[in-house]
């Protein structure tokens, strides 16, 4: 038996070990803590690549927690799975790799960024706990386990958002996020209760196999979609997002971006792998599309008027999540009809998944750039900045790449995923792609504003002595820049080797169920 079968469990064990060992290692001094943090997140990145490779060659990986054997999903002839089972297919292994990249970038950036503050040991500990929660949300195949990881991620992010606890705004942002998270978590718990009460099952695949669309399931679905849309920041429930993203340290914001995507992964799992073809009627897909369109438009229109660089980017997150919701809604709309699925449904799913990945990379990078600006200028107000391009050449270069990618300028990765979304949503209704295009143009406008005010223009007197940020911070930003450039330079390879298998895995409910229960639907 090769060790690679244990990869899904190691993906959770390594960050958890990192979280609890960091305070002990930190007794060895500042240097030991830094090396240990980088080591843990690098190991995690390597493991995630191994897992991606394993899933690509061996098919869906299944791991039974606490079982006699790692793949004994139905112990002693039972008809349904009883233990916590991790299920990793091409979809969640791909998202996990990007999550690990973002985690490494955040660790590297945070090394010097937080140097002048206290409480870094607990920061590192919570950071790895948040990483574990994020990976758990992505990899788990069990409904209750999903709730537990949702809460692990929430509790650690409450602590991290309130890291600057002498700032009243940080505490306020953390409290706001906590209220939204707790309401969302309780709704998830109720939804799990409804499904459990109906089927006596907690495994997503097993529920997906027997599910029928009755009243209890409808209530569960409404609770799940509302709660997870709250957690990923869709429009009417978005108010925590700009506050939390702006007030958390930049290195944490990167990870919060991935956590919001992890909630979206959960939403996709519920909608596609648990309910699947049971909900292809018009209501749910159009609800997702409407939610996406409103988020897109309102998010970006609120972003344009912001003066604080991180709040501006926070509002952009709302609009970017809108793109993905719309893409998944269009995919779900086409799911009932094989011809529509081939025509535009699959394109839409590919666009949605690719956009998720791209969003993590460029949004993460943009938040790190905002952190770098804060590090050198001590302010987040755009009106007080100016002429920083000459002083910070690397940061400027990376900002331009990220801004071009988020605005969908060819040849960057954002362009590829947005093109897929425009194409497929046009087939449903031209108005959808019009909204998406307008959003894209407004995004470009607001980032031109940031570039113009912060980096160009006359040099401000008070910033005449600023220098480029320290090397480790540049390295943290460079990690994400390299990923963006990689995704941008080889879009055809990425789409056909990573995104397409991911989209196929997501819409193929039978394969997901077959991985755990053997026989498919």
């Amino acid at each position: 038996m090769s060790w690679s079968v244990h990869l899904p469990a190691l993906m959770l064990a390594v960050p958890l070990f990192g979280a609890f060992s960091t305070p002990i290692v930190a007794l060895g001094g500042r240097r030991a803590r830094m090396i240990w943090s980088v080591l843990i997140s690098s190991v995690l990145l390597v493991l995630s690549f191994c897992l991606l490779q394993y899933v690509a060659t061996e098919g869906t990986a299944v791991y039974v927690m606490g079982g006699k054997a790692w793949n004994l999903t139905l112990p002693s002839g039972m008809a349904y799975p009883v233990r916590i089972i991790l299920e990793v297919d091409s979809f969640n292994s791909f998202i996990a790799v990007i999550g690990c990249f973002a985690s490494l970038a955040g660790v590297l950036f945070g090394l010097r960024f937080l140097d002048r503050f206290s409480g870094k040991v607990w920061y590192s500990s919570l950071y790895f706990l948040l990483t574990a929660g994020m990976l758990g949300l992505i990899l788990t195949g069990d409904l209750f386990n999903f709730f537990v990881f949702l809460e692990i991620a929430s509790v650690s992010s409450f602590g991290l958002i309130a890291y600057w606890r002498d700032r009243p705004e940080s505490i306020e942002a953390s409290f706001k996020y906590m209220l939204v998270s707790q309401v969302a978590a309780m709704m998830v718990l109720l939804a799990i209760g409804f499904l459990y009460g109906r089927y006596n099952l907690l495994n997503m695949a097993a529920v997906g196999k027997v599910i029928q669309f009755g009243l209890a399931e409808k209530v569960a679905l409404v609770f799940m979609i509302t709660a997870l849309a709250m957690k990923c920041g869709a429009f009417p429930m978005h108010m925590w997002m700009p506050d939390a993203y702006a007030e958390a340290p930049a290195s944490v914001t990167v990870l919060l971006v991935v956590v919001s995507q992890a909630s979206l992964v959960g939403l996709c799992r519920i909608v596609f792998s648990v309910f699947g073809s049971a909900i292809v009627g018009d209501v749910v897909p159009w609800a997702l599309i409407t939610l996406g369109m409103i988020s897109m438009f309102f998010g970006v229109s609120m972003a344009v008027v912001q003066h604080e660089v991180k709040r501006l980017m926070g509002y952009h997150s709302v609009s970017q999540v809108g793109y993905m919701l719309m893409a998944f809604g269009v995919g779900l709309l086409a799911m009932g009809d094989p011809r529509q699925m081939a025509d535009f449904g699959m394109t839409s799913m590919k666009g949605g998944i690719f956009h998720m990945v791209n969003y993590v990379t460029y949004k993460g990078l943009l938040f790190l750039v905002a952190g770098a600006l804060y590090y050198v200028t001590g302010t987040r107000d755009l009106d007080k900045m100016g002429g920083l391009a000459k002083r910070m050449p690397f940061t400027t270069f990376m900002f331009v790449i990220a801004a071009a990618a988020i605005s969908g300028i060819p040849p960057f990765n954002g362009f590829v995923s947005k093109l897929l979304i425009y194409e497929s949503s046009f087939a449903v209704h031209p108005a959808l792609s019009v909204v998406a295009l307008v959003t894209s143009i407004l995004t470009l406008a607001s980032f031109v504003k940031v570039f113009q005010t912060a980096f160009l223009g006359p040099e401000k007197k008070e910033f005449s002595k600023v220098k480029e940020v320290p090397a480790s911070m540049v390295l943290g930003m460079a990690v994400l820049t390299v990923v963006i450039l990689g995704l941008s330079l080889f879009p055809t390879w990425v789409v056909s080797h990573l995104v397409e298998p991911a989209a196929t895995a997501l819409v193929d409910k039978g394969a997901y169920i077959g991985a755990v229960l053997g026989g498919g639907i």
Partner: protein
Amino acid sequence: MMANLPFVVVGLLFLMGLIAIIAENNLFKIAIGVGVMESAANMFLVVLGYRLKGDIPVKFLPGPVDVYVLPTPQALTLTAIVIALATSALMLSLIVMLYRHYGTLDVREIRRLRG
């Protein structure tokens, strides 16, 4: 009707919690609202696992038992209670810190983050 009474209570409790979170202005009352919601969710799980005239799921003394109460929802509830404990503690500590910064518990006055 009597069999559905617990579910009605769960629904009422959940709504009460939600209304407290939305309508109350005192931070502590909001925290209590969250607690009420958590209790509603936990009660829902426990009620789901109840079987009419069922015995406790883990029994140490031997005796004739026909029906057991389901153990899984109870295990889930225990986990959820522990998590709720952690979040409540964190929430109360944040409230204390907010009070220190603003000198009030009224959410209408704690509004530096706008728009």
